């Protein structure tokens, strides 16, 4: 797969363009990826236009209409404080998508940087970074996130950070292994021969070549991080009331599961659909960027 990537990103502009076109075509041919992309696009639009499409203020209680089932006034019913569930879920898409994007960005940024350093310099740098990554990997993801939150404190942003941090190691490992093979390639050696500095080699020559696996990892990771952030909010460690984060809404329906099951069901469905959407899209992106992988 190495040489294909070099062509993708190191070749001149028109070739890159046609490469992108080919990727795009492959993506569109994949029906599941299109469905996933549609779902993701739908939720992105919902999040962007939330204030316009939400029929009610998501945080305004209506104590006289608590725990109502779905009705023409409240399509998804009302929650334990009489707040409109549809509006809360619409607004919740903002927090959930944001949680996914922020945590993946943190993970990709930190993980790529560490992977680059580790793979390029090798030796004791590699040793220290990778052993630390191994330590992180030893913990089950969500437990590690909980431990990080117990240091940072509760809150949605801290939940995003902690989910991001626990994903760092997967990025670092993938990037490192790519860098290990790249640094022996001829183009790196020639760069070194003409006297390029280490940082120039890392950021100008190696970084562009690891973009593909990082993009693939990021898309695949989005679903997982959204789920993890929702789980933390469900446990009361992420979004704090009255924030209509999906996990938090779900948690609010827990005590009344058998009296008003819709309160836990709808945010649960929203999480499910979004996560499946991101996973389908992620699979599609991987197949499109890396057709050889699919054949294996």
């Amino acid at each position: 797969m190495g040489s294909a990537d070099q062509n993708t990103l190191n070749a001149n502009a028109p070739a890159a363009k046609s490469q992108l076109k080919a990727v795009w075509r492959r993506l569109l041919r994949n029906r599941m990826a299109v469905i996933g992309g549609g779902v993701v696009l739908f939720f992105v639009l919902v999040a962007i236009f939330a204030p316009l499409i939400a029929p009610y203020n998501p945080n305004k209680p209506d104590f006289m209409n608590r725990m109502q089932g779905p009705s023409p006034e409240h399509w998804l019913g009302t929650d334990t404080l009489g707040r409109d569930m549809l509006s809360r879920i619409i607004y919740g898409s903002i927090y959930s998508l944001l949680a996914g994007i922020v945590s993946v960005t943190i993970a990709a940024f930190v993980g790529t940087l560490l992977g680059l350093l580790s793979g390029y310099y090798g030796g004791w740098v590699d040793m220290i970074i990778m052993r630390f990554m191994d330590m992180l990997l030893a913990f089950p993801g969500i437990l590690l996130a909980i431990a990080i939150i117990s240091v940072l404190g509760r809150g949605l942003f801290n939940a995003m950070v902690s989910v991001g941090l626990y994903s760092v190691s997967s990025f670092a490992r993938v990037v490192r292994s790519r860098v290990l093979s790249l640094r022996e390639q001829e183009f790196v050696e020639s760069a070194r021969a003409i006297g390029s500095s280490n940082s120039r080699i890392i950021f100008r020559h190696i970084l562009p070549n690891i973009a593909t696996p990082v993009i693939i990892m990021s898309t695949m990771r989005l679903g997982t991080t959204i789920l993890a952030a929702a789980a933390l909010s469900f446990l009361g460690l992420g979004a704090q009331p009255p924030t209509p984060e999906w996990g938090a809404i779900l948690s609010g329906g827990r005590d009344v599961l058998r009296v008003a099951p819709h309160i836990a069901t709808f945010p649960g469905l929203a999480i499910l659909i979004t996560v499946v959407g991101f996973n389908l899209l992620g699979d599609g992106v991987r197949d499109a960027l890396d057709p050889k992988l699919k054949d294996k």
Partner: protein
Amino acid sequence: MQKRDLLNVCRSLLVMFAVVSLIAIAPGAAAENGRVVYAIDVDITNLDPVNSIDPGSAAVNQQIYEPLVRMGSTGDIEPVLAESWSVASDKVTWSFNLKKGVKFQDGTPFDSAAVKAHFDRLLDPDKPSRARGAFTMIKKVETAGSHTVKFVLAKPYAPFLAVMTDLGGLICSPTAVEKWGDDYPFHPVGTGPWMFKEWLPADHTTLVPNPNYWGGKPKISELVFKPVPEPSARVIMLENGQADVANTIMPDEMKRLERSKDITVQRVPVLRGWFIGLNVLEKPFDDVRVRKALNHAVDVNIIANQILRGTARPLTAPVNSRVWGYSRQTEYEYDPVKAKKLLAEAGYAKGFEANLWVPASGAGFMPEVPQAIQAMLAEVGVKVKIIPFEMSAFIDNIIKDPVESKKSGKHMVMMGIGARTGEAATIMDEFFGTGSWAPVKYNRCFYSNEAVDKLLEQALQTFDQAKQKAILAKAQEMVWDEAPWIFLYEMMGVYGYRDNVKGLQWLASNYILFHTVEK
């Protein structure tokens, strides 16, 4: 908070797991015959009554131990280990004649020496005691013969008998205390109808009948207390028959449960009141206009009738209306406009931000209530952040001195006023007296008013009940007017039990006595 957070989360996960597995279990898995399981909403933390006043521990301690006198179901004071009592003309010496022929579960005879030993331990300033606070008026305890005990008080204290009903007055066997030392909470011995068998913290506590109980051996073979913090899990256990009795049924589940054929829902009036204590030493709560504004901003009627489904009604005094000495005040009517005006007058036209600490669970607590309050306060510009705390760690976390309280930012704390003595003089003193500032007692609002202090001092020394009531009424009026709390509501205890369980007795303090239970 950090370590506790982690623990809480692990526990939540476990509870979730439990709920799921409970739903999976068919109703066939019933509690065995002759064994009664009580699913209780709070943890059991310490079986030494000298060192625990939390409701979970007390629920168990009430079975193992007995006091000299107790507040019965109607709130009247009844004899238990004391047969009679009197106060001398000096108004500070109280004599109790003890019941004869009573033995502790380990065979130690119950006599005046045992009572003295118990109270000496309770009052020993060198030993830790969470229950001591209520008994600080006792100067010394003397024995007068084998079955008469004299309590000499530092000064006259009219409601002393009510104080003796408090949890620290549950008498421990002196032999067992000496034998086990620091390990005593794991080997509790009292005179009660139930003997300790095992305690697995956070899992269960098992008691077995005391064959030599002076009031007759209990009829069932085992009594199990199972802490189940998740409200829906308690209801499921009750419906499955895994629990025979459950407390704190959520109002939202009440109706559904009432329709069930083999479950009885019992509403029990309680002495507790709920409030949000405001730290009056800190801005902006140092301004009475702000405190009044907050009272006007919260619609307690809506909370009581809609969220708590009529199991509560607004507080109409700083104490619950069933407490002796209660005097009705004019409620702060719900008026957000007035609230905004008061806030503006105080210089907070734009509102302010504050932390609202609320119990994570326990004692009839519903998470919707603080969320509703949060929304109501937001309407007048007051943004509160809700921070949960563990009820079982209430004393350790919340009852802090002014410096610590300021540091931790605990400006608004929602809590229940226990009203353990059932009369207003002691409660008012504990919660509003200057001498009761935390951590000495529960005045964690650091409210201080010389006039109120004087009235309370006077009330505590007035033996004439009519006069005492009049004084207490004045004190309540002043406190109500200065509003160191957002006065919330008094709530019924809602219990569920399976129909084949008979003979449950509720004390006015809301603890269940299981002596006469049958199944």
